[in-house]
C-alpha cells in the first residue's frame, strides 16, 4: 500500500516536472488555460482549433471571455462560433448562450452583473453555430479569474539625498483602480511596485504593499529610473495589468563638504587624546599602580608593627604581645594541645609503684585533687604550691619524688620569691641563640615538697602572664598561687609514644649574665634554624604571649647547689648504657645515667642542647 502510494507520488512528481518544463508560463489552470491550449508559435500547417484565449474579471462583478478561431478561417466570421455557458448550481442550469457579445471587440463574450455569480462554477463552451461541435470548454469560478485593473495616479516625491550626493530615496504614491470597489471592502488589493534603470532589462520588485504608498531606497542620482505598479486580490494570485511607467531622475548634487578636513580633524583629535592620556598616566603613575596592582596585604596583627617584630627587642615584643590580650585564659584552659604535667603534692612522701615520670605525666593516677583535666599529660599540679615556690615542669623526677611542679612562682609578684636558696642554674649557653631568653624563668630552687622556685629576678612584671599561671594551676589553685608571675615553662618532652626523660630546664635568670633583660620572666627559646628535636613531643605550656614559643624546658633544680654551669648543654650522643654524653666543651659534663625506664633515643647533635648536667643527675633513679 505504501509502495503504491509512493509510486503514484513519484509519477505525479515526474509529470509535474514535465508539465512545468513544457509550459513555464502556466498560471492557475482555472484562470486562463482552456482545455486545449495551443501556443501561438506552432507551425501553421498544424490546424489549430478554435479555442478560448481567456476569461477575466476586472472587478469581481463582471467578466469577459475571449476566443480565437484558430486556423479555421471560415469560422472567424462573426456568428460562426457561439459561446455557451452553464452555471454549476443546484439545480444544474441549462446551457445558455453568451448573454452579450461585445460589439466593439471581436470574439468577446461579456457577462454582466446579472449573469455574474461569484463563488459559482462556470463552464463556457465554444461551439460552432452550424454544426453541433464543441471546440473548446473552459470551467472556472469568477473569483479565480479576477485580474484587477492597474492602480492610477502613480507619482513620486523625493525623500532625501545622501550626503555624498550619490544616492537618493523616493516615496511612490498611487490610488487604487477606480473599478475595484475597495471602499466597501468588496475587493482587498495588494500592490507590487517594480522599478528598473532606463536601459535595464530586469525589473526590481518590491514587497507587496497593502497601502497606497511605498518608499524606494538606494537609487543613484545620475541615473534615470522607470517605475510601474500592478495589483492583485489578496489571497489570490492573479496580477492585473501594469500601470503606465513613471520616470524618476535626480540630478547629482555636488557635495559641499570635502572629506579632507574631516579626516585631519579626526586624526588630530585622536592624537591629542592619546597625548592627554599618556600625560595622565605618567603623572598619576603611582596611584594608578596602586589601583591596578594593589599590594598584597601582609598578614597583620592589629596594633603590632611588623617592623618591630622584625627587629625589636624581646622585651618590647613581650610587652607588646602581652598587651594584645590575645591569649585568653579561657582558651588557654581549654586548649587540648596544651598539656600540663600534673603534679601530685600529696603523694610527695610516699612512693608509689608507678614511675615518677608516669606520675609526672599524670597517667596512672587520678588527679590528686580530683583534677579532671583529662587532657593533661604534663607535669602539672594545680594545687601544688600553696606558697611561693617556683614552678618547674620537669619530667625527670627528683630525688624526693617531687612531682614536677608547673606552678610558677610565688603568689605575689614579689621580687624575692621565697626563702629558698637561690640556685641559679646556669649552664653555659650553647649558642648565642640562648642569649635572649626573656621568656623563661630560671628555676632557682626546688623545695622539698617538690615545688620549684623560680628565680625571683624573673618575677617581673608581666601582669598579663598571671592569668596563665592561674590557668596552669588549675581550678583548685588558690588565687595567691595565681599571682605568680613566673610563668610555666613546661615542656613535656616525649618521644614517640612515650616520654623522654630529657628535660631540659632552661632557666632564664634575669640576673644571668647572658640575660640582659631582667624584667622579663621568660625567655623565649628561639627556634634553631630548622630544629626541633624530632623525638620531642609537643607538650608545652604556653605562657601568655607565646603561642609560638618554642619549647622551653624547665629544669628541676637539684637539691644541692651546683656551681654555675652553662644553661644548656648539647647532648652529643647517648652511649649504650643510656648515658647522655654531653658536649665536651661544657665545663662539666656529668654522665648522668638516665633513668632506665626512660627511653632515650639517640639524639642528633643538635646545637640546641636541652639537657643540663644537673638534669642528668636527676634523671638517675
Amino acid at each position, binding site marked *: 500500500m*505504501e509502495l503504491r*502510494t509512493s509510486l503514484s*507520488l513519484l509519477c*505525479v512528481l515526474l*509529470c*509535474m516536472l514535465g*508539465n512545468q518544463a513544457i509550459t513555464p508560463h502556466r498560471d492557475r*489552470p*482555472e484562470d486562463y488555460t482552456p*482545455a486545449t491550449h495551443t501556443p501561438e508559435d506552432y507551425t501553421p500547417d498544424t490546424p489549430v482549433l478554435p479555442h478560448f484565449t481567456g476569461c477575466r474579471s476586472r472587478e*469581481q*462583478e463582471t467578466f469577459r471571455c475571449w476566443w480565437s478561431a484558430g486556423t479555421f478561417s471560415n469560422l472567424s466570421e462573426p456568428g460562426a462560433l457561439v459561446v455557451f455557458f452553464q452555471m*454549476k448550481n*443546484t439545480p444544474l442550469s441549462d446551457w445558455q448562450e453568451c448573454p452579450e457579445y461585445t460589439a466593439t471587440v471581436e470574439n468577446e463574450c461579456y457577462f454582466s*452583473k446579472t449573469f*455574474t*455569480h*461569484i*463563488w*459559482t*462554477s462556470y*463552464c463556457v463552451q465554444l461551439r460552432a453555430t452550424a454544426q453541433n461541435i464543441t471546440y473548446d*470548454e*473552459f*470551467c*472556472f*469560478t469568477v*473569483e479565480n479569474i479576477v485580474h484587477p485593473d492597474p492602480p492610477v495616479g502613480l507619482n513620486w516625491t523625493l525623500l532625501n539625498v545622501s550626503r555624498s550626493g550619490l544616492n537618493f530615496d523616493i516615496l511612490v504614491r498611487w490610488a487604487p483602480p477606480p473599478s475595484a*470597489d475597495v*471602499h*466597501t*471592502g*468588496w475587493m*482587498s488589493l495588494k500592490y507590487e511596485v517594480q522599478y528598473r534603470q532606463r536601459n535595464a532589462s530586469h525589473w526590481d520588485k518590491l514587497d507587496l504593499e497593502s497601502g497606497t504608498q511605498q518608499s524606494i531606497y538606494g537609487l543613484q542620482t545620475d541615473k534615470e529610473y522607470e517605475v510601474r505598479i500592478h495589483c492583485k486580490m*489578496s*489571497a*489570490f*494570485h492573479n496580477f492585473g495589468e501594469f500601470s503606465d511607467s513613471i520616470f524618476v531622475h535626480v540630478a547629482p548634487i555636488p557635495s559641499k563638504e570635502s572629506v579632507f578636513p574631516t579626516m585631519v580633524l579626526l586624526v588630530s583629535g585622536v592624537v591629542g587624546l592619546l597625548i592627554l592620556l599618556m600625560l595622565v598616566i605618567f603623572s598619576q603613575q603611582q596611584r594608578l599602580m596602586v589601583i591596578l596592582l594593589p599590594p598584597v596585604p601582609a598578614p597583620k596583627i592589629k596594633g603590632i608593627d611588623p617592623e618591630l617584630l622584625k627587629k625589636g627587642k624581646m622585651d618590647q615584643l613581650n610587652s607588646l604581645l602581652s598587651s594584645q590580650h590575645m591569649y585568653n585564659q579561657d582558651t588557654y584552659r581549654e586548649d587540648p594541645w596544651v598539656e600540663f604535667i600534673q603534679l601530685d603534692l600529696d603523694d610527695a612522701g610516699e612512693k608509689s609503684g608507678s614511675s615518677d615520670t608516669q606520675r609526672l605525666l599524670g597517667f596512672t593516677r587520678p588527679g590528686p585533687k580530683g583534677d579532671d583535666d583529662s587532657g593533661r599529660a604534663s607535669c602539672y599540679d594545680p594545687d601544688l604550691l600553696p606558697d611561693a615556690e617556683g614552678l618547674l615542669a620537669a619530667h625527670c623526677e627528683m630525688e624526693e619524688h617531687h612531682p614536677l611542679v608547673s606552678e610558677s612562682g610565688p603568689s605575689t609578684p614579689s621580687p624575692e620569691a621565697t626563702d629558698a636558696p637561690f640556685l641559679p642554674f646556669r649552664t653555659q649557653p650553647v649558642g648565642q641563640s640562648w642569649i635572649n631568653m626573656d621568656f623563661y624563668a630560671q628555676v632557682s630552687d626546688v623545695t622539698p615538697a617538690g615545688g620549684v622556685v623560680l628565680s625571683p629576678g624573673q618575677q617581673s612584671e608581666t601582669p598579663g602572664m598571671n592569668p596563665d599561671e592561674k590557668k596552669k594551676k588549675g581550678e583548685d589553685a588558690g588565687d595567691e598561687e595565681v599571682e605568680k608571675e613566673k610563668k610555666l615553662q613546661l615542656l613535656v618532652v616525649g618521644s614517640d609514644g612515650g616520654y623522654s626523660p630529657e628535660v631540659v630546664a632552661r632557666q632564664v635568670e634575669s640576673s644571668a649574665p647572658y640575660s640582659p633583660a631582667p624584667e622579663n620572666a621568660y625567655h623565649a627559646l628561639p627556634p634553631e634554624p630548622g630544629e626541633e628535636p624530632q623525638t620531642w613531643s609537643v607538650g608545652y605550656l604556653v605562657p601568655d604571649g607565646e603561642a609560638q614559643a618554642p619549647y622551653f624546658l624547665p629544669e628541676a633544680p637539684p637539691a644541692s647547689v651546683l656551681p654555675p654551669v652553662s644553661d644548656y648543654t648539647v647532648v652529643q650522643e647517648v652511649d649504650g648504657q643510656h648515658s647522655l654524653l654531653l658536649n665536651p666543651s661544657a665545663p662539666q659534663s656529668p654522665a648522668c645515667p638516665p633513668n632506665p625506664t626512660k627511653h632515650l633515643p639517640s639524639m642528633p647533635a643538635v646545637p640546641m642542647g636541652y639537657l643540663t648536667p644537673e638534669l642528668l643527675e636527676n634523671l638517675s633513679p
Partner: protein
Amino acid sequence: FSRSLQTVLFVALLCLDLRTHVGSAPICPHGHTGCHILSLADLFDRVIQHSARLHGLSSDLHSEFEHFFLPSKNHIGRVYRKCHTSSILTPNGKENAQKLAREELTEVILKLLTAWRDPLSQLHQSMAHQQDFNSFSSNKALELSDMVHELRKGVEKVTEKMQLLGMISNSVNGLSSSEALLPASESGEAMSDYELVYCFRRDSDKVQNYLKILKCRIVPEHGC
C-alpha cells in the same frame, strides 16, 4: 545617596509599569466606567482581520493541494464539485449581499462558520493520518479549525453587540444549536480532502466579503 537613588528608580519603575497598563485597552464587560469600551467598528475590524487571515490560510492550503495533486486538464470533473454548504443560500454577488437584510446576512455568516467546524477537524485528522502530507499542511488544517471556531465566536459577539445597540432585530436565531451539516457529496460519499479544502477556500472568501459588506452597512464610513 545610593538608597535614595534606589527608591527613585523603584518609583520610576512603578510609574513606568502603570503607564504601560494604562495604555492597553481592555474590553469591559457591560460598560464599566473607566474602561475603554470597544466600539462596534473596532469589533468589526478585528473580525474582518481574522476572516482575512482565515481566507489566506485556506488559500495557501489549497495551493499546496494543487501542487500535490497534479491539476488535471479536465476541469470539469474537478470544478464540478458540490460542497456540503451548497444548501445554504448565500448571496452570490455584491449587490445581492447589499440588498440582503442585515439579520439574514449575519445569519448566513454564522451558518457558514458553524457548518465548517466539524469538517475541518475531520480534515485535520485525515490529513494527519496520511503520509502524503507533511506536518506543515496538517498543522494548517488544525489552525483553520481553530480559527473558524474563534471567528464564529467573534461574529457572535458582534451580533450581540448589534442587537444590543438595536441595529438588528433579535430574530437571529438558533446559532448555538445549529444543525451540523455533514459533508457529503451527491453520491453520498464523504468528501475527499481536496474537495474539502476547495470548498472551504470558497466559503472563507464568502465569509470575508459578507463581513465587509455588513460592516459597511452597519457602521457607515466614507465610501460605503
